[in-house]
């Protein structure tokens, strides 16, 4: 007989099938509309958008081509492994011949649904993921056989419990201090545990050969990714939103095909750079985004505002785990032995990460260094510090970063928002005021 605690263990309340179906249908329809809208807006503000961008538009449709592909591959016996955060070792998943997909959720509607079981103080990324699960909205979450879940913040810790009602959840325990040798060895053990779990689920052994292939595959992706980022350094040849979209599709696309397409895009952009065909005026204020991850499609609200406002701004770089940080760091292997490869993977995911969930003797200085470096490299005029309500780790780090940026004489604007479309109007005013100020500074 099940004990009381087992009977009441489920977080997610029971809903009737018809309610689930109704909600699913309406949310899916509105989500498809948002995706279409965003693409429409991107096309409008970049007149001669390259042909190859259409590929990314197609992949960006979460309910479209890629979902079908994964379904087909799953039917042939391949396993799908979801992950919620960039701490998950993708190379391991690829090495075991499984399909890695990011399951984080960016739907505003489902965040409201998540409010039913989560307090509203919780970060909407978490609420939205729970809400999406309640009505089976997220196609990748539904398709995944297991989910790797690094417990980086309090929200994700409890989210892992809620999702565990439906899916096998593999928790990873990232240490909060990363420059201690013992925390690194602890993290490497976490990686080894995940490796065993992946091997057990897929039935494929991760050995030296296929791990090396996977690492090289990801290195190629990093190479293409960095090439694209490099192109954003000069006068704008690509709008920030488009680059962000390209970056984000890597989270669920087939990584080899993605690499190839990004290289095609870069070829095209390099040609345009030579002919001085810019995506927008070269003297547009250059904005850097930092803070909470912006997840396709609904979170495109902010970059849309920046790049469509009057005066216009262009997002040249970001410091987000949903953007510039996804693929920037390569796995640097010294000797191609199994142990060294695992060390390299462990270090790449833990040490190279600048997530504010870390601290050290000198605070999370790696992140500040990253921001300072990007500001110099990409000639950033102003920083927009984007925080959704409840994302306290990013919110708390704001003050220190502001102090540093003030010293550097770089304006920074704290843009706090929610997973809602209702504040677009007033946000527009705020963003425009900031961009006007940037433009005024540039004139001087």
């Amino acid at each position, binding site marked *: 007989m099940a004990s009381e605690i087992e009977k009441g263990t489920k977080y997610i309340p029971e809903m009737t099938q018809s309610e689930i179906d109704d909600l699913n249908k309406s949310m899916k329809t509105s989500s498809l509309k948002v995706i279409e809208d965003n693409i429409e807006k991107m096309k409008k503000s970049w007149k001669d958008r390259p042909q190859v961008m259409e590929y990314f538009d197609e992949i960006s449709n979460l309910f479209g081509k890629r979902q079908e592909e994964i379904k087909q591959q799953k039917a042939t016996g391949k396993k799908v492994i979801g992950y919620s955060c960039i701490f998950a070792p993708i190379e391991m998943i690829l090495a075991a011949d499984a399909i890695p997909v990011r399951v984080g959720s960016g739907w505003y509607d489902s965040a409201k649904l998540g409010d039913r079981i989560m307090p509203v103080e919780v970060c909407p990324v978490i609420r939205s993921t729970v809400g999406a699960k309640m009505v089976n909205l997220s196609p990748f979450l539904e398709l995944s056989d297991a989910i790797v879940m690094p417990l980086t913040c309090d929200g994700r810790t409890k989210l892992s419990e809620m999702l565990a009602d439906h899916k096998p959840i593999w928790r990873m325990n990232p240490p909060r201090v990363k420059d201690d040798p013992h925390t690194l060895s602890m993290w490497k053990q976490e990686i080894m545990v995940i490796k065993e779990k992946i091997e057990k689920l897929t039935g494929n052994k991760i050995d030296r050969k296929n791990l090396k292939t996977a690492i090289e595959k990801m290195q*190629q992706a990093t190479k293409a990714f960095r090439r694209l980022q490099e192109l954003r350094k000069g006068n704008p040849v690509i709008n920030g939103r488009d680059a962000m979209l390209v970056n984000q599709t890597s989270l669920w696309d087939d990584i080899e095909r993605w690499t190839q397409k990004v290289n095609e895009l870069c070829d095209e952009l390099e040609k345009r750079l030579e002919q001085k065909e810019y995506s927008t005026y070269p003297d547009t204020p250059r904005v850097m985004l930092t803070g909470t991850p912006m997840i396709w499609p609904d979170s495109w609200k902010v970059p849309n505002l920046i790049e469509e406002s009057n005066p216009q701004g262009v997002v040249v770089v970001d410091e987000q785990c949903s953007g510039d940080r996804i693929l920037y760091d390569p796995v640097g292997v010294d*000797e191609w032995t199994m142990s060294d490869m695992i060390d390299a993977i462990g*270090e790449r995911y833990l040490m190279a990460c600048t997530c504010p969930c870390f601290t050290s003797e000198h605070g999370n200085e790696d992140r500040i260094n990253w921001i300072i470096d990007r500001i110099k490299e990409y000639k950033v005029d102003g920083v927009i510090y984007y925080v959704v309500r409840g994302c306290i780790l990013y919110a708390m780090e704001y003050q220190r970063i502001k102090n540093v940026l003030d010293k550097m004489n770089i304006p920074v604007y704290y843009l706090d928002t929610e997973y809602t479309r209702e504040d677009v109007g007033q946000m527009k005013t705020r963003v425009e005021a900031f961009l006007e100020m940037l433009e005024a500074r540039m004139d001087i």
Partner: protein
Amino acid sequence: MLEIIAETLRITIAVALILAGMLAIVIWVRNNTRKLSTLRLFVQIVAVVLIFLGLIIGPFGQDQWEYLGTAPKDIAIGKEIFGRPYPDGLTVPTFSCYYASGRTATCVVWQLQSYLFPDFGTSSVYSTSGVERLAIATGLLILMSIIFGRFLCGWICPFGLYMDLLTRLRKALKIKHWTLSDRTNEVLRQSRYLIIATFLILSVILGMRAIAGVELVSETELGRYLEIPFCQVCPAKPLFVLVEGALGFMDVDYMLSQTIGDFALTGWYLTSINLVILGVVTVGSFKIRRLWCRICPLGGLIAIFSRFGPFKKISLIKLTKVEEKCTKCGICKRVCPPQVTEVYDDKGGDVTVSSCILCFRCVEMCPYEGCLQVEVAGKPIYKSKNWLKEEE
């Protein structure tokens, strides 16, 4: 009997050398994406040839110095340079062993030890005085330390090449390496100075041969060895003597007297200490990268004159780091052969430390553009870059 042992040794070592050479070439071809490591291997091989075969390939038909064997070597290049016989060649702070006969350069530790006392057994060969020789050796040591620093260890030292080849062999066999704990490393690092101080003091004491009328070392062949105490424990000596002997550049009898030893004459137990240490270092550095470099007293000597006090400011080759570009990904720490942690830990600026052998592996592997750089006299000559770009 001796002849058979000699022949066996010669053949074994020749075969081992040929295999090592083939391995080096294979790795070279396979690994040519990492350009700097390949260049370093090349420089090391060229350096070893120049150091040990320079006089054999170079000035032919010169007189030879009986004591060292039959190869044309040890000609007083001093005659050309200094106008007076100074048969030890250039002073170089690497393991360019005195006992291997074809050398153009001589290990500074041997020179310091043997010049420290006035009546060296073969001093009739020299026309220069002991003090003058000591001044030349010390001066060149300091000069080279300032100019090259431990770059000599990473790029020139023949014993370093030996260890690197062992590492490459291990890599080719896909065996993982061991890492020492930072604490052990620190202990080893500090012990270098103790070792070199002990042996230099020992050589002064033994060199005096007698203190207050009490004889310490007798005027025998054995005594001559004891006067140069560090060379009796140095792992490089038997290695180079064996290699040269095997290649036929050295008199076999002499070689054997250096390695196995003529029982009656030299005291075989002394030279066997070298062999034991060489064995330990060989096995150890197969598993632990650049093991000897961590305790090398010669490296410590260079470090004193390039990384401490006023020398730190004027030394030419430096490794610097730009703090802002560093995300502390830890690659530099992991790939470092002598496991230097300062490059990773330090905030920025000059991150060269005394245990760094300036092999620049960290600069080569750092994936952030311009984060780590090699500076020569303040001018950056080599920067870390996005190495993914080159892997076509």
